[in-house]
């Protein structure tokens, strides 16, 4: 085991995959400036700064992916993906299909999301559900350095476009990473805490929120299970359904806003496929339907907090099922 931060885990995964496969390269605004170690090891052809133009960065990745390379692009902050939606959604996501399988698009898009830096809504927008909704893409959003490393490696090896979202608040969080960390498969959730009374489903930063809430609930005699989705698409439906079959109660927690978010998908999945097990309404705790404010106290209020999770679970435990 080594201890490293999420940012270091991403760099380590990049370095290992670039060493393993000469077709892997990385580019983006400031990539060569900020990832000096990669630049030194792999040279200026494989670690490139780009002009400031997200659309062509993503389009270049898609074109390169279709013709033999495995590009990783860093688009910095998730709102900037707005300039690259066509290349990500209409090209990378759809052209394998439209070509009848002739071309594939093995590429990775990195972007940061989430509150904590006071930079406001043009830098902070959890828009991951857009991509979950769009065909042909895979989406990864881990919460620990070990998962970032393992899933980043898998993402690079995957023959499909994979978006990897990193919550900025996690960037400097240290964690244990196994020395020989192997690629972690996409589509497998992690059971962070076992419990029998309620299932808390989350991903990214708010997994920690759920774990804190679970501790507080334990003091109250309520035994919460915490599932970290890690991969939003493919989604580990089996892990969610298995847990709800056991607990009969579900709260989904994320920072992204509620409407048509990942929480809606998880709730709808359970309302269809685990309906018979459900003993209480399915709750979602999410960011509000508002842009992210810069002001520190407002930014904090934007993100679901442990006490809100505790209160939600307590309300569920009281809930009586009507037949």
């Amino acid at each position, binding site marked *: 085991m080594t201890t490293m931060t999420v940012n270091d885990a991403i760099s380590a995964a990049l370095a290992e995959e670039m060493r393993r496969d000469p077709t892997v390269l990385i580019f983006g605004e400031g990539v060569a400036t900020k990832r000096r170690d990669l630049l030194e090891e792999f040279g200026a052809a494989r670690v490139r700064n780009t*002009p400031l133009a997200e659309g062509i960065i993503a389009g270049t990745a898609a*074109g390169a992916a279709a013709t033999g390379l495995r590009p990783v692009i860093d688009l910095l902050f998730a709102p900037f993906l707005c300039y690259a939606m066509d290349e990500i959604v209409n090209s990378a996501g759809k052209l394998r299909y439209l*070509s009848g399988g002739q*071309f594939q698009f093995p590429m990775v898009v990195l972007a940061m999301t989430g509150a904590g830096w006071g930079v406001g809504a043009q830098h902070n927008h959890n828009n991951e559900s857009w991509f979950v909704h769009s065909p042909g893409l895979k989406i990864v959003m881990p919460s620990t350095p070990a998962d970032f490393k393992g899933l980043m490696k898998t993402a690079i090896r995957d023959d499909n476009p994979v978006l990897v979202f990193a919550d900025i608040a996690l960037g400097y969080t240290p964690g244990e990473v196994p020395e020989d960390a192997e690629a972690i498969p996409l589509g497998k959730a992690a059971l962070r805490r076992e419990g029998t009374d309620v299932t808390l489903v989350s991903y990214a930063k708010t997994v920690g929120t759920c774990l804190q809430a679970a501790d507080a609930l334990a003091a109250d005699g309520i035994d919460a299970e915490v599932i970290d989705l890690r991969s939003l698409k493919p989604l580990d439906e089996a892990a969610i359904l298995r847990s709800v079959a056991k607990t009969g109660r579900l709260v989904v927690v994320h920072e992204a806003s509620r409407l048509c978010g990942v929480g809606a998908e998880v709730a709808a999945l359970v309302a269809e496929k685990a309906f018979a097990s459900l003993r209480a309404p399915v709750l979602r705790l999410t960011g509000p339907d508002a842009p992210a404010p810069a002001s520190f106290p407002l930014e904090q209020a934007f993100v679901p907090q442990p006490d809100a999770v505790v209160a939600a679970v307590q309300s569920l435990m009281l809930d009586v099922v009507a037949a």
Partner: protein
Amino acid sequence: MTAFLSPDPAVLDPAPLDPAPLDPVAALERMMLIRAYEETLIDLHGRGRAAGTCTAVGQEAPAVGVVSALTADDLILTNHRSAGHLLARGADPGRMLAEVMGKRDGYCGGKSGSLHISAKELGVVLTSTIVGGELALATGVGLSRTMLKQPGIVACFFGDGAACEGRFHESLNLAAVWNLPILYVCENNQWQAFVHRQETMAADGIAGQAAALGVASAVVDGNDPLAVHDAARTAIAAIRRTAKPFLLEAKTYRLRGHFEPDDQSYVDKAELVHWRGRDPIPRLRDRLERDGRLTAADAARIEARVRATMEAATAFADASPYPGADALTTDVYA
């Protein structure tokens, strides 16, 4: 001041295979095949047997002139008016028609329809129906040529309308900075769907915009396949020599509407008549006949051959089955 070197300048084949100069009679036949293909499509649509489509009637010269200047290693990206580029590259009109009709034997198994045909075996990476999509991906294809030390260059066909999209600017700028081996071919056909080019740009054309971004450029008569071919050969030689992109602007005209059917009621009649008089096919045929390089009998033989090809193609596409229902969800993920 820091000197920033462009990383890894393109390593291109030092003595690439140069295609033979264009045989004008072969060019005429190829243009006639493209015309016949598109007329067949229009007819099939009229009879409810194919979806509506974009044709490039009157724009056969850039397709034949440029594609005939490419070698087998070169790759092509193009836009919604791609039939000519594909046919000039040797695509099977039967498989193309099958694709447009949504049949299993189409190049993309019927999933593309007319608007996104790609054909890996021909080096056609993309038909983009998103105007500008071909410009966005071309840089990546150029990059892979360079980094994988492949000898080919990239030909990227796009319209004057695409030149209004920001991706035009971004693509040329990146290609210039990264020294990507891309031949940008702007088919300036004066129209952008239902809007005339003069309504969309103050500039007189596209080439000057390329120059301002550091991309060498030239303008050519886009209704003359031989002139286009010569300009393309010169441009490609420059790309191979300098490992830098080049933009060729072919001035031409869209003789039919934007998307079949289209009554062209919004088109200035005098302008249309003017350009009909410059239709590249009769223009080349007349010239060859005047020069004694083509007899009426030759022309008739070509016409018969083209007609037979299209009849066989139609029969092939007709006979091809529709894809099975399972195809709805295959090819989404690798």
